[in-house]
């Protein structure tokens, strides 16, 4: 499987999907105007992961800001992971929020209410 390592920019997050080093992370700001284009490699990676799943992946989502279009795409990522989890591959999502950021905490709680997979919400 391909390793994805996209550095952060002013309006796009850092994305690391690296099964060799067991680092799975989306962090920073997700405000692109065209979210579909930005997340295309991530969705492709998830399709591959679904075909050749590796157990016990822990995806860290650590966002400072995201726009509503990204919010829809994050949901699509989580729904895809839910599918993989319910097909029998154990995995976990860890949603990080800054202790002062109540909106980001609530955003995590709202996702966890929708998707059926182990979902941890952690302050940092």
């Amino acid at each position, binding site marked *: 499987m391909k390793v994805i390592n996209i550095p952060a920019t*002013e*309006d796009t997050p850092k994305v690391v999907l690296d099964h060799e080093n067991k680092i799975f992370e989306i962090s920073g700001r997700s*405000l*692109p*105007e065209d*979210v*579909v284009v930005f997340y295309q490699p991530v969705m492709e990676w998830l399709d591959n992961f679904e075909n050749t799943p590796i157990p016990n992946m822990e995806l860290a989502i650590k966002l400072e*800001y995201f*726009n*509503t*279009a990204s*919010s*829809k795409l994050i*949901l699509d990522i989580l729904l895809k992971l839910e599918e993989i989890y319910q097909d029998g591959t154990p995995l976990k999502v860890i949603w990080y929020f800054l202790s*002062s*950021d*109540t*909106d980001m905490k609530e955003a995590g709680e*709202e996702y966890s*209410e*929708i998707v059926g997979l182990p979902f941890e919400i952690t302050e940092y």
Partner: protein
Amino acid sequence: MENASKKLLANQKSLTHISEFHQLMDEKDIMLVYCGEFSQELNKTLLAFTERKFKSENVEDNTRRKMFNIMVEMLQNISKNKVENTGEDPGISSVFMLGNSSDDYVLISSNMIRNDKIPPLKNRLDEVNSLDKEGLKQLYKDARLNATFSETSGAGIGIIDIARKSEQKLEYNFEEINDTYSVFSLLIKVSK
């Protein structure tokens, strides 16, 4: 000679406008005004400016984050929904403003919209204004779950998110320009 004095007069006049404009900005406590073409590159510049300003003024973290989020949705709403130039386009510039009142920060956007896009947008604005915090949360969850990507570029989910972050009623206006176009103005408040 005549030309030169005309020029001088014109300059004096424009300087008067500048001082009037400056006075207006001070009175209304306007922090930022941009009028013209909007793009993602420009949005990033306006966001970076605002972020620096709020940090230097020690605006409380949650308020600063809410403002940033609302601003992203308002700016991308303008830059993503440019009306196509068909020749009947009356060519009215889009505007974004950020101001201050004693109790609130005020964000204002104004842009052209095709008249046929008004009814669903107006319905969404009225729906959002009729709901409380819990109702908005539910509407946001449902809209996000059911949205397709063509809709996320519309104002649908963005408007709900703005209402949730603002925690106040949205003020809006549609002003008809001609049979095809109107100007859509939106005013959002965030408590200090």
